[in-house]
């Protein structure tokens, strides 16, 4: 089991969810997060003074999938969230040791 964790633009959430629905994802968790990559924030203006918002609002999409589904999942997320501009986000893949379905107590890949 692997966790695919994608940091995306908030406005790409619909497209990413559509893409994931297309390949039949097991479950998903969405979090509103803030941060920046190499972009180092965006400029705003308040009453004539410019200021930088260093931590930009993003959305983190977390999906836990079977190992063989990882490439497909990544492919779908990348296609849905890429605009080609700075600030498109990142995807991280990590190993998941264990999963438990709270309702039944099932564990391992039965739980996801």
């Amino acid at each position, binding site marked *: 089991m692997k966790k695919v964790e994608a940091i995306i633009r908030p406005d790409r959430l619909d497209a990413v969810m559509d893409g994931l629905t297309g390949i039949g994802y097991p479950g998903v968790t969405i979090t509103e997060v803030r941060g920046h990559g190499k972009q180092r924030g965006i400029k*705003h*203006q*308040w*009453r*004539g*003074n*410019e*200021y930088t918002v260093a931590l930009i609002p993003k959305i983190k999409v977390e999906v836990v999938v079977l190992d063989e589904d990882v490439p497909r999942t990544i492919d779908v997320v990348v296609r849905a969230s890429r605009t080609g501009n700075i600030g498109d986000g990142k995807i991280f893949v990590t190993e998941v040791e264990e999963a438990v379905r709270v309702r039944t107590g099932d564990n391992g890949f039965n739980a996801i």
Partner: protein
Amino acid sequence: MGECRIETHVQSRRRLYRAILASAIILVVIFCVGSLAMAGDPSGARTGNSSDVKIDSKAKPSDQGSALLDEVGHTRISLNFVWLFLGAILVFFMQAGFALLETGLCQKKNALHVMMTNFMIFGIAVIGFYILGFAIMFGGFGPLVNFGGKAILSKEVTVGGWGLIGGQGFALGGASYDVGIFIFFLFEVVFMDTAATIPTGAMAERWKFSAFCVYGLFMGAIAYPIFGNWVWGGGWLAQLGTKAGLGHGFVDFAGSTVVHAMGGLAGLMGILVLGPRFGKFKKNGTPRAIPGHNIPIAIVGTIILVFGWFGFNSASTLNAGDLRFAIVATNTLLASCFGAVAAMLFMWRKTGHPDPSMSANGCLAGLVAITAPCAFVSSWEAAIIGTIAGVLVCVAVFTLERRFKIDDPVGAVAVHGINGLWGGLAVGIFADGTYGAGWNGVPGTVRGALYGGWSQFAAQLIGVATVIVFACTAFYLFFRIQDRIQGIRVAPEAEVGGLDDAEMGVPAYTEEVSDLYIGVQ
């Protein structure tokens, strides 16, 4: 089971639709029958006629004549009462505008504190004005010609004939227990409240609440009424015409100086004593942006202020039969539009964006500037006054902040202070001589410099200089002394953590899930 429940649901829906249809048909029938009867007066032409005039037809003709005149007089004065009442409640609603505008332009952590100052200034300052302020400001007003003509407010303290303060009508007691005095009080007290609420924006986000409460009493009971007496209460600035031959004396129709410059300059003095918010200026003195937390409510607040301003300026005729109020209202509207557009274009050109909060400031600057001259100028002059105000407010915001290191979170000094002074001067420039006959007891109409009235311009200069000297001296001393006695600024940790938690004991917004977890009690 489940299907059965769905069946019942559909059936009850059908019953509901049938009931709606049946009542609609019944209503249509009632309407048709009702309009056929025609017992009413749908056009309004027959409502209000001689049968509404209370005259004894058996009385002598001369008595009937005087009874008729009584009726006409009563109706006329009644209209003035309604007019002033309408104006008063419109101006009162400006409190909501100020509260939303200032809160929106400040930070989330101080939102409730800013709201509370805007709300409680109403309570505190009105009490001060009721007990002391009204008598000081209008105690020597003379006969209330539009409200029954009684000369109850007739005690003015003078030096060499020049009026300084009034001394009649304390706590609306004694002879002041009179409908004319009460309606006049109602209208005037909301103007005071407008002036008093202006510093809550200028001094926001670091002003100690207990210090603010004392300020509210001082403003409502003493400072505002004294200058007000000089201009509107028959005091020495109003007498510049009759006693010194300067035009019609100092003329301020609805309060560019009396209300707005007074409030704006008080705020400026407060800022000087308070100092800037933490982090407003970098070590090298360049200003940092501290963005407001809710610009949409600031815009709604601005629109509410425009709405209230129609009462502020138009009802200042104090006379429903003075149809000049049509000119006043339209000039008010025009100046606010031109102010908003001028500020928007100025900011767009300068910074690349049609800055929303500065456009709102521009709109208000136009309103502040037209408040004194609104009754004396034509539409094109209102447009010029508003346009200049819109540019002036942007320049003033930048100059005050960048050059003089004045930290005014909402731009109150630039909007009310600077443009209040501009409005006072504008009367002396643009008044076109079509209105103001007998103003301040001087025959003839009010004329500004453009129409040859240079002595009026001189009177305006004196009035504007006086409000600067008076407001700055009174409030600088007041805040300095108050700072020495009780301290007017919050503790640094309270400012950093937010005044809602530190002073109000409750945050403005508790929508976060983690806020709702109250822990083990």
